[in-house]
C-alpha cells in the first residue's frame, strides 16, 4: 500500500511515531507524578518576601484613640498581627495571642504586640477586641494601605519585627503559642523564620 514512500523513509518514520508517542508518555508521566505528590494548594505555605528586610511603615491612631508608630517600638521584638472580625481562623488564633501577650508582658524583655484591622468596619473590630480581650494597640487600616505595604492578601497573618526594625519572621494562617515562641527563639538566634498553615480566611 505504501508505494509512494521509499522503504528507508518508511522505516525512519515508523520510529518517529514510536519516539514521539514515547516522549509524550514520559513527559505526561513525569507531570502526573509531580501532580500526584503535591500537597493540596491550601497547605502550601507562601513565603513573604518581607522577611529579612526592613519592616514597612506602620502608623496610625489606635481604636483607643492613641497614636501608634512601629518605628517608636525600635529596641523591642514586636509581633504585628493582621485580623478581621469576619475571619474564623482569626477568631481561632486569638486565645493564643492573648495568652502569649500576657506571658510576654511579665518578662522584662518581652515581645510587644500590635494588631492591624484588615478590611473590617470599625464597629466590627471594636466588638472583636472586646470579645477576645485584646489589651495591646489595635490600629484600623483605612483603605488597606498598611495591609498593602505588608503584602497581606488574606488574614490572619503575623509578622515578627526584630529590635533592629527588620522583619525576622512571618506566619500565614492561625498561629499557636508554640509557634509564636518558636519564631521568637529563632529570631533571638538571628535566624529568619517563614511558616504557616496557609489556611487563609477559610
Amino acid at each position, binding site marked *: 500500500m505504501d508505494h509512494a514512500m521509499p522503504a528507508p523513509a518508511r522505516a525512519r518514520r515508523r520510529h518517529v511515531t514510536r519516539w514521539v508517542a514515547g516522549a509524550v*508518555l514520559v513527559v505526561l508521566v513525569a507531570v502526573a507524578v509531580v*501532580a500526584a505528590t503535591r500537597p493540596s494548594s491550601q497547605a502550601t505555605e507562601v513565603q513573604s518576601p518581607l522577611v529579612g528586610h526592613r519592616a514597612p511603615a506602620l502608623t496610625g491612631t489606635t481604636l483607643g484613640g492613641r497614636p501608634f508608630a512601629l518605628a517608636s517600638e525600635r529596641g523591642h521584638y514586636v509581633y504585628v498581627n493582621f485580623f478581621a472580625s469576619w475571619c474564623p481562623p482569626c477568631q481561632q488564633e486569638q486565645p493564643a495571642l492573648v495568652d502569649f501577650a500576657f506571658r510576654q508582658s511579665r518578662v522584662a524583655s518581652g515581645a510587644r504586640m500590635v494588631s492591624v484591622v484588615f478590611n473590617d468596619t470599625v464597629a466590627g473590630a471594636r466588638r472583636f477586641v472586646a470579645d477576645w480581650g485584646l489589651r495591646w494597640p489595635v490600629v484600623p487600616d483605612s483603605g488597606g494601605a498598611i495591609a498593602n505595604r505588608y503584602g497581606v492578601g488574606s488574614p490572619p497573618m503575623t509578622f515578627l519585627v526584630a529590635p533592629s526594625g527588620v522583619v525576622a519572621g512571618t506566619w500565614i494562617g492561625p498561629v499557636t503559642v508554640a509557634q509564636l515562641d518558636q519564631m521568637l527563639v529563632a529570631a533571638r538566634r538571628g535566624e529568619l523564620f517563614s511558616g504557616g498553615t496557609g489556611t487563609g480566611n477559610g
Partner: protein
Amino acid sequence: MLPAVLGSAGVWLALVGALCGVVVCAAGLVRGRVPSRLDARLLAVVVLVGALLAVGAMEVALVTHDFHLVYVADNNATATPLIYSITGLWSSLAGSILLWGLVLAVFCGLVVWRYRRRAHDDVVRWATLVMYAVAAFFFGLMVGPANPFLSSAAPLRGAGPNALLQDNPLVAIHPPLLYTGFVGFTVPFAFAIGMLATGRVGEQWQAEVRRWTLISWTALSVGIVLGAWWSYQVLGWGGFWGWDPVENAALLPWLCGTAYLHSVLVQERRGLLRVWNLSLSIATFALTILGTFLTRSGVVVSVHAFSESDLGPVLIAFFLLVVVSGFGLIAWRGDRLRSPVGVDAPLGREGAFLVNNLVLVGFAFVVLLGTLFPLLYQALENQAVTVGAPYFDTVAVPAGLALLLLMAVAPALSWRKVDAGVLWGRLALPAWSGVVVVVACVAAGVRGVEPLLGFGLAAFAAASALRSLVLAVRASTRRGAGPWRGLVGRTNGGMVVHLGVVVLAVGLVAASSFRSQAELVLRPGKVAHFAGHTFMFEGLRTVDTPQRLATEAIVRVDGGGPFTPAVSQYGGPSSQAVGTPAIDSGFFGDVYLTWDATGRTGKSTGGNVVATLPKTAIALGAIVEPLMGWMWAGGMLVGLGGLLAMVPGTRRRATDPVSALAPLVAGAAPDPGSRPGSEPEPEPEPEPVPEPARLASES
C-alpha cells in the same frame, strides 16, 4: 434512611454490573469470535438501572430535604426552592461524581444498543470493555472516597447550597451539558483503544466515532458558553472567562475535540492522519480525566474548585492508566497505522486542516502548560507563581485570529490541490466583505489593530460560511430535495457552527476591547451619565423570602428598568453576603450594574471612594460592554449547527474531482482509505486489513 440504602444499593449494582461487563467482554475477546453464552449487552441495562436508582434516591432525598444524608445536609436547606434542590445533585463533589456515573451509564447503554447486532466484533468488544472499565472506576469512586450516601443517625441541620449556586437557573442546565460533553468523550476513547488493540484503523470506524464525538462536542460547546454566561450573570465583575484552572479544564478537551472533528475529515476523505486522530481521541479523554483531577484534588488554586478531597491520587492514577494504555498502544501499533498517502500541497483543504490542527493543539498545549505551571514551579522552586489572564491572552489572540482566517479560507479550498486563480474566484466576495468591514470600522472610529483584524476576519469567515451555505441550499433546491437539505449534514452543519463561532468572536472582541467601567456615586432621585447612558437611582428596597434576604438598589438605565443590583444573603442574616449584579441587555450591548457600597450602612469596602460616600448615596459599579449578547447568541448557534451536523446529509460523490495525478500518488493498488462513502453506512464492514498486519494482530 431509605434513600441512603437504595442509593448505596444502586451504586453497588452499577459497580458490579460494570465489573461483570469487563469480565464478560474480556472473556469474549479471549475466546475469539465464537458467540458467548454470556451477554455483555444486558449488563449495560444493569449499570443503567443501578445509576438511575442511585440518582433517583439522591434526588428524592434532596427534594424531601432528608438531612440524614450528609451530602443533602451540606447542600440543601429546608428553604431551598425545588429547582435548586434538584440542582443540588451536582453542586458538590460526591454528587457530581454521581451525575458523571449516570451520564456514563447512559452512554454505555447507547453504545451497546447502537452496536447490538455487532456485539461480537472485536472492535465493539474492546470498546464496550473500555466503557465498562471506566464506569467501574467511577462507581468504584462512589463506594470509596466519594461516597454520596454517607449518612448520620440523627438528622443534621441543612446548610443550604453555596450562595452563588442558588440565584440563577442556568445552574440547572450548564453542568449537565458540560458533563455530557466530558463523559461522552469516553466513547471515542473506547473505540480508539478498540481500533488500536485490534489493529483495525478503518475509516468507517472513525466515521462512527466522529458522530459520537460530535454529540459530546456540541454538548460541551454549549455547556462552556452557558457556563461563561452563568459566571457573567452571577460573579459580578462583568467578565465571563478568567482562565481559571477549572475553566481551562473544560476548554482543553474542547480544543482537542475540535481538532479531532476537523482532522477526522481528512482521514475519511483521504485516509490520512490516522495516528494523529487516534492520539486526539485519547488525548481528549485523558484531558477530561486530568480536568477532573484539577477540579477535585485541590492541588491548584481555583475559585470554582470543589472542596478538598482525597480523590487526587486515585484520579491521577487513573489518568496515568489512560495515558499509558493509550499512548503505549500507539507506540506499539504506530507503524501499522501509517497512512498510505500524504498531504499533497499546502493549498489543499488537507493542508488547511493540518494547520488548523496545529493551531488548536498548540493552543491546547499552551493552556495546559499555563494551568499546570504554578504546580510544577512550586514543586521545583518552592515558590508560588501565578499564570493568569495576560499570559493566556498573549497566545489566545493570535491563535483566535489564525483560526478565523482558516475558517474563512478553508471552505473555499478543494481537497488535494487548488489553483490560486480558482481560489481567489471563490474567495473574492468574502475577502472584500472583510475589507469593507475593516474600512467601515475605521471610518466609524474603531481603533486598535487586534479588534479591527478580529472584525475583518470575522466578516471574511462569516461571508465564506454563508457562501458555502447558499451554494448548498441552491444545489439541494435544484435537486428537488428542498432547501433545508442544504443546511443539514456534516459540511453544512459545520458551516452553521462556523457562523456561530464568528458571531461569538465578534461579541468577544467587542466586549473585551471596548468595555468601559466606572463607579458612579448616586443619591436617590439623581441622574448620572456615563458612556452614553443615563443612570437614575430611585431608592432601596428590602426583599425577604425564606430563601433569600436582600437589599436591592432600584436603578433605571436610560429610563428603562427598573434594574436591581443587590446584596443578598442566602441562609439567614448571619450568612455571608454576596453581590447580585443586574444586567440591562440589548442587541448593541449590555449595561452591567453592581452595587459596590452604600453610605447608609457605613459598610466599608476599603476603597477611598467609600470613605467619602454621603449617607444616603450608593456607589454603583457600571460596566458598558458592547455586543456582549452576541456571545451567547453565537454559542446557541454553535449548538444548533452541531445538531444540524448530526442529521445525516445528502449522499455525495465519494471525492471531489481530483487532478490527473491522483491515482499515481495513491498507488496502483486500490486504496480503501481514500474512497469511503462520505456519509457512513449504518453497518460499516471492518476495513480490510493488509495481510501481514492481520497476522501480526492475531499472534
